[in-house]
C-alpha cells in the first residue's frame, strides 16, 4: 500500500525494504522531467535529507528521503529514461532502502486532502 510524505514522495513497503518515488502531483507540478540523479547501492539515506535531484527543463527539485537506512537497489532505467516518472510515477520507483526508521507518513486519502490545500 502506497503512503506519502508532505514533500510529495511516495513510499511502498515490501517485506523489510521500502521503495521510494515521486507522487503524481509532484511530476505534474514539475512538468517534463529530463534528468534524474540517483545514489549508489550501499549509500545511506537519512530522513528529511535529499537523495536525488530531479530536473525539468525549467527547474531542479530535490527529492527527500522519507526513511533512514541503506540503499539496496536503484532504478537505473530512470537515468536514461527520466520521462518514466511523468508517464507512470507509481511504477517509476527511484530507490529501494533497507529502512531502520521511517518518518510519519500520510495515507493516500490524507495526501489527497493535503495537496488540495
Amino acid at each position, binding site marked *: 500500500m502506497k503512503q506519502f510524505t508532505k514533500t510529495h514522495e511516495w513510499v511502498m513497503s515490501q517485506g523489510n525494504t521500502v521503495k521510494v518515488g515521486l507522487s503524481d502531483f509532484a511530476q505534474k507540478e514539475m*512538468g517534463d522531467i529530463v534528468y534524474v*540523479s540517483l545514489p549508489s547501492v550501499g549509500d545511506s539515506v537519512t530522513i528529511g535529507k535529499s537523495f536525488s*535531484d530531479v530536473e525539468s*527543463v525549467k527547474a531542479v527539485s530535490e527529492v527527500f528521503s522519507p526513511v533512514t537506512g541503506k540503499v539496496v537497489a536503484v532504478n537505473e532505467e530512470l537515468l536514461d529514461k527520466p520521462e518514466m516518472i511523468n508517464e507512470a510515477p507509481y511504477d517509476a520507483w527511484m530507490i529501494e532502502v533497507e529502512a531502520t526508521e521511517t518518518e510519519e507518513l500520510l495515507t493516500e486519502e490524507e495526501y489527497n486532502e493535503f495537496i488540495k490545500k
Partner: protein
Amino acid sequence: MTKQTPLYNAHVRHGGKMVEFGGFILPIQYETGLIAEHNAVRNDAGIFDVSHMGEFDISGKGAFNTVQNLICNDITGMKDGDCRYTMMLNDNGGIVDDFIVYKFSDTHYWLVVNAGNTPKDDAWVKNHLLSDTVFVNKSEEYGQMALQGPKAEKILNKLVDEKFIPKGNYTFTDDVEICGAKCVISRTGYTGEDGFEIYCPATATEKIFEKLLEVGANDGLIPCGLGCRDTLRFEACMPLYGHELNEDFLATEVGLNIFIKMDKDFVGKNALAQNAPKFKRKGVKLLDRGIAREHSDVFDGDRKIGFVTTGTHSPTLGYAIAMVRIEKDFNGDTVEIDVRGKRIKAQIVKMPFYKRSY
C-alpha cells in the same frame, strides 16, 4: 502590479499554467507540456501571446535622427516595411534593451521593446528625443501574437491573402485586415523558426488568436507558453535581456558585434571606443551528466572565468547545453561548470546550437 494581457481569458480557457513574467501574468505552458509545445514549433506550428511586449511609436521629421542616435545599429538604408534588430546602450556602453526597429516611412518608426523594460525604456527614450520628434508609447493599445514554425505561413495564408504576407525575413506589412481588424504582420520571431509576429488592436487579439487556432488545428497548431519560448530562443542562441544582456554588460561583450556600427554616432559609442571588452558569449555542451543552470560558475582548472547566462536541457538536441559569459582571453576547448557543488565538464561548441534547414 501584475497586468493581464488581452488573451488572459483565452489562456485560462486553454488550460494555461499562469505565472508572472515582466510585470504580466502569462502562461508558462499549457496542458500539452513544455517539450510537446517546443516540438510543435520545431515541426509544425505554435502560437504565443507576446502582448506584453512594448510598442513605441516614433514619428516626425526628427524621428530618423532620434532613432539613429538611440541605437547602436544603423537604420540608414532601411526601406519602408523593413525590420532591423538592434541594442540601445547607456552612457557606459551597457545595454538598456535590445529590440527590433520597424520602419513605416522616413518619418515613422516603431521600436518593439521587452516587456520588463518598457517603463525604463519609456523614460530613456523620452530623455533622448531630438527636435521634431513625437514619441507615443502604444503598448496598451496593441495585442501581439507570434505564429511560429514551418507551417506558420500556410496557416496565416488561410486568413490573409498571399500578397499581404511579408515575404522576406525581417520585413513587415501594414494595414492588413484579419477578422476585421487592421494589423501589422512582420516576418520575425524568437524561436529560430520561420514565422510571424502579428500586432493588432488589443480588443481584437482574442478573436484573432482563436481564429488562428481554429484554422491551424489541422496543421498541428497549438498554443505555446513562455517555457518553450525560452528553450526555442535558447537553442537558436538568441539573447534574452536580463540573462545574456543587461545594463552592466558592455555591448561588445555579448556576441552581437555585427549589430554595432562604430562608423555612426549613438549613445554609448564613446564608452565602447574607450573600453575593451573583457568577456565574450560562448556556447557549451555538457559532457557529463547534469544540467548547468543560470548563475552556475564556469572554471578553467581552479580559476573562475565566468558564469552561465542560460542553461538547460535542449529538447531538440536531447542533451544539456548552456550559454556562458567567460573571459575574452580564454581560448581552451573545454571548461568545468559548478553544478550545485559538483564539477561538470563542458565543451565549447559552435553557436547557434540549432539552425533550421530551409
